[in-house]
C-alpha cells in the first residue's frame, strides 16, 4: 500500500487535515473559532477511525469513531461553548502573542516528528509510519499550544489536541485493544470536566482566564 492507492490516500488526507486543524488551533485567537476548530478535529478523528476500521477490517474501530464523534465532535465543544458564553465579551479573544513564532516552531516540530518516526519504523507499513509521524506532530503541536497560550480555555483545547494525536496513533496500529481506547476516551472526558470546572472557578475568583494570574496565589487556601 502506498501513494496512489485509495486506503493510504484517504488516511493520509484525514491525518493531514487533522494536522492542518492543529495549526489553525495554534494561531486562532477567537475562542469561538477555537472551539469550532476543536470540534472539526474531533470529527476528522472520528472519520479517520472509521476509515481505519474499514481498511483493517476491525469493527471495534467503528466504536472508537463513534465515541470520538460524540465526545470530541459534539459534547466537549458544547460544554466549552456554554462555558465561553458565561465569559464577558472582552474575554472572547485573547491578546495577540507571537503567532509567527509559534507557526515557525510548529513547522519545526513537524519536521522533527518526521525525522524521528520515519527512520525508527523502517519495515513497518507505510500507512502506519505516516500515521505515527502525523500523530506525533499533533501531540507536539498540542503541547506547544499549551505552552504559548495564556488563556485556560486555549490550554484545555491544547490538551484535547494532544489526546486526539494519541488516539490517531492508536488507531493507526493494527490490533490495539478496544479497552485502551475506551479508557482513554473516558479519561479525556473526565479531564475536560475537571479542567472546565477549574477554569470556571478561576474566572469567578480572578475574573480572568490567564493562567499566569495563578502564580502569585500559589499555596493559598490551605
Amino acid at each position, binding site marked *: 500500500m502506498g501513494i496512489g492507492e485509495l486506503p493510504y490516500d484517504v488516511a493520509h488526507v484525514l491525518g493531514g487535515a487533522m494536522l492542518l486543524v492543529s495549526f489553525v488551533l495554534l494561531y486562532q485567537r477567537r475562542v469561538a473559532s477555537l472551539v469550532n476548530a476543536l470540534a472539526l478535529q474531533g470529527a476528522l478523528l472520528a472519520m479517520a477511525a472509521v476509515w481505519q476500521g474499514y481498511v483493517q477490517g476491525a469493527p471495534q474501530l467503528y466504536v472508537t469513531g463513534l465515541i470520538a464523534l460524540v465526545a470530541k465532535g459534539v459534547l466537549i465543544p458544547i460544554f466549552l461553548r456554554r462555558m465561553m458564553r458565561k465569559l464577558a465579551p472582552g474575554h472572547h479573544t485573547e491578546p495577540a502573542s507571537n503567532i509567527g513564532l509559534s507557526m515557525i516552531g510548529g513547522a519545526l*516540530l513537524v519536521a*522533527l*516528528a518526521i*525525522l*524521528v518516526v520515519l*527512520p*525508527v519504523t523502517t519495515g513497518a507499513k507505510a500507512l502506519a509510519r505516516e500515521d505515527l509521524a502525523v500523530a506525533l506532530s499533533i501531540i*507536539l503541536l498540542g*503541547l*506547544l499550544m*499549551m*505552552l504559548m497560550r495564556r488563556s485556560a480555555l486555549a490550554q484545555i483545547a491544547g490538551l484535547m489536541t494532544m489526546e486526539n494525536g494519541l488516539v490517531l496513533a492508536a488507531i493507526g496500529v493494527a490490533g490495539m485493544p478496544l479497552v485502551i481506547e475506551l479508557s482513554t476516551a473516558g479519561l479525556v472526558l473526565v479531564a475536560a470536566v475537571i479542567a472546565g470546572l477549574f477554569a470556571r472557578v478561576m474566572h469567578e475568583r480572578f475574573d480572568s482566564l490567564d*493562567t*499566569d494570574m*495563578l*502564580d502569585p496565589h500559589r499555596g493559598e487556601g490551605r
Partner: protein
Amino acid sequence: MLTLLGACLLALLGLSALGVTGRAPRVVFLGCAAAAAGFGLAAAIALTGDGMAATALPVGPPWAPSLVALDPLSAWFLLILAVVAVPALLFAAASPAPPPAEGAAFPLFLAGMAAVLVAADGFTLLLGFELMSLASWALIAARHPTGVGRRTARLYLAFAAFSGLCLIAGFALLAPAGLGFAAIRAAPPEGWRAAMVLILVLLGAGSKAGLAPFHIWLPLAHPAAATPVSALMSGAMVKVALYVMIRLLLDLPGPAQPAWWGLPLIGLGAATALIGALRANLERDIKAILACSTLENMGLIVVGLGLALVFRGSDLRPLASLALAAVLLHALNHAGFKTLLFLCAGAVASLAGSRDPDRLGGLIHRMPWVAGCAMLGAFSAAALPPLSGFASEWLLLQSLIQGWRVAEMSIQLIAAGTLAVVGMAVGLAAAAMVRLLGLVFLGRPRTPRAAGAPDAVGMMRVALLLPAALSLLLAVLAAPMLSLTGGAIRQLLGANALAPVAGFDLVLGDAGARYAPWAVALLLALAVGLTWLAVRRRSSLAPTREPAWDGGFMPPPPHLPFGDPLSQVSAMGLGQPIRRSLGRVALAIRERHYPAMPGDPATATLRVDTEDRGFTQMLYPLARLRRRLSRRAEALRGRTLRINLSLAFGTLVFLLALVAWLERG
C-alpha cells in the same frame, strides 16, 4: 556434612521463631550455642578431611538453585565464627533476659553469617550478607528505642545498605556468565571491569570490615549493642567481611590479576590500623576501646591481604603464602582474644555497673577471674611473645619486611613505609591495652559501686574461661593450627604453596627466621617459676604489704573512704600525651579552656571535643552537598506554570532530537 549444616541452619530459624515469643531466652541462646558448635564441628571435619563440593539446594532464586559448598577457606572462617559464637552465646545465656526482638534477631544474625560462609553462588552470599546486616542492625536498635543509640543504629544501617549495594554491583560486574562461583572462576574479569570489581569490593566489604574512611560507624555501633552482640560483631562479622574480600579479590578473579591490586589494600589497611590504634588510646568507653582495637587488627589483616595480592602478582608464591597465612592466623587469633576481651568488658559493665574507666578501677582485687582473663586477652592483643597475637603479627611483619624482594622500587618503598606505620600501630595498640588494664583493673576503685563489684560466677565464668583457654591453646599450638590452613592456601595460591610451618614452629623458608612459641612459653615459665621460688621460698624476708603510693597527693578526706578519685589518673589524662602529639592524625580535636573568673572559687575547666576525621571530612561534606542539592530541587518547585510546561516540552523535544540524531549516525 550437608545434613549437619542444614540442621544447624534450620535450628537457628526455629530458635528465631521461639525468640520472637520472648519465652525461654536461655533455651534460645543455648540452642544457638549448640548450632554454632555444630558449625565448628563441620568446619573441623572439612579442615582435617574432605570438604563439601558445591551442592544445589532445593530452594533458590527463580533462575537457578542456591549452591552451598564448604571448601577449606569457608571452613576456616566457619571455625572462626564458632570460636566467637559459642562463648558469646554462653555469656548471653548467663545475662539477664534481653528484649524479645534481640532473641529473635540473634539466631538470624548467626544464620546470616553462616550462609555467607557456606554460599557457593553470588545470590546466596548476598542474601546471607544482607540478613547479617539487617539482623545486626535489629540487635543494636532493639537495645535503643530512642536517643543517641538509635541514631547510631541508623548510621550503621546506612553504611550496611551502602556496602550491600556495592557488593551487588561488584557481583554484577564479576558474573556476566552466571552467579555460581565455578562460572565466575571460568570467566575472570579483565581490564576496567576488574578494576571496578576491586573498587566496589573495597567499598562494599571494606566498609563492613571497617576500612578507612568508612570506619566511622564501627567504634559507635559495636559498643552500642549488647555484649555478646558486640563480641560477635567485632570478632566474627568483620571476619565475614574479610572472607568476602578474600573470596572476591583473591579467589574468584583468578590468579592472573596484576600486582598493583594489593596496593590500595595495603594503603587503606595501614591507615585503618593507625587510626584504630590511635583512637583506642583516646576513647572513654571500654567497649569503644575494644572496637577501635578491632579497627587496628582489621587494618593489619588487610595489609597482609594486600601483601598476598602483591606477592602473587609478582610471582613470589612462597611470600604470598606467608602473607596469606598471617592473614588467616591473625583472623582466628583476633577472634579468640577479642571475644575474650569483649566478654570481660561486658562482665565488668554488668557487675561493676559502668563502662566508663573513670568509674572503675582496682577491680583486680574484687574480680580476680575476670581480671585474669582480661589480662590474658589484653596481653594477646598487645602481641606479647608467647601469646596468640604475637605469632600472627610476627608473620605479618616478617612478610612486610620481605617486601624488598618485589622487583619494583615503588612497591619496595611502599612496603618499607607501611612497615613503619604498622609498627607504630602495633605499639600504640599495646599502649591502649596498658591503658585499658591500668584504668579498669589496677589502682584503686573510683566509685563505691566498683569497690563492691562481685566476681563472675557460674556460666558467665565458663563463658570467660572458654575463650581464655582457647587463646592459650592458640598461643602454644599456633603452628599446628596454621597447618590446617594449608588447604585454603593451596586453594588460593596454587597446588605447591605451603603454610610456613615446621612441626610446632613457624618458619620462613629453610634458612629463614623461626618462631617457636612452645620454647618461649617454656623459657618464660622457667624464669617466672625460678623468680617465684627465689622470692617466696628462698628469701629470708617475710612479705609485707604497704600502702599504695599516692602520687604525692594528700591522704583522702574522711568522706571519701575509697580515696580521692582526683588523685588517680583519669582516662582522658592518661590519653592526653598521645592526643596532643598524634591525635590530629585521626581526629578533629577542639580544646576550649574556661578559666574561672577572678575571685570565683569555681575550678577552671578544659573541654575537649573530638570527632573522627571521617565525619568532618567525608560525612559532613556529603551532608552539606545533599542539603545544597535539595535546596536546588526545592527552587525548581517555585517556577511558574508556564516554565514547568516548557521544561517538560523542552525535555521532550531534546530527547526526540537526540533520537533523530542518533538514528542518523
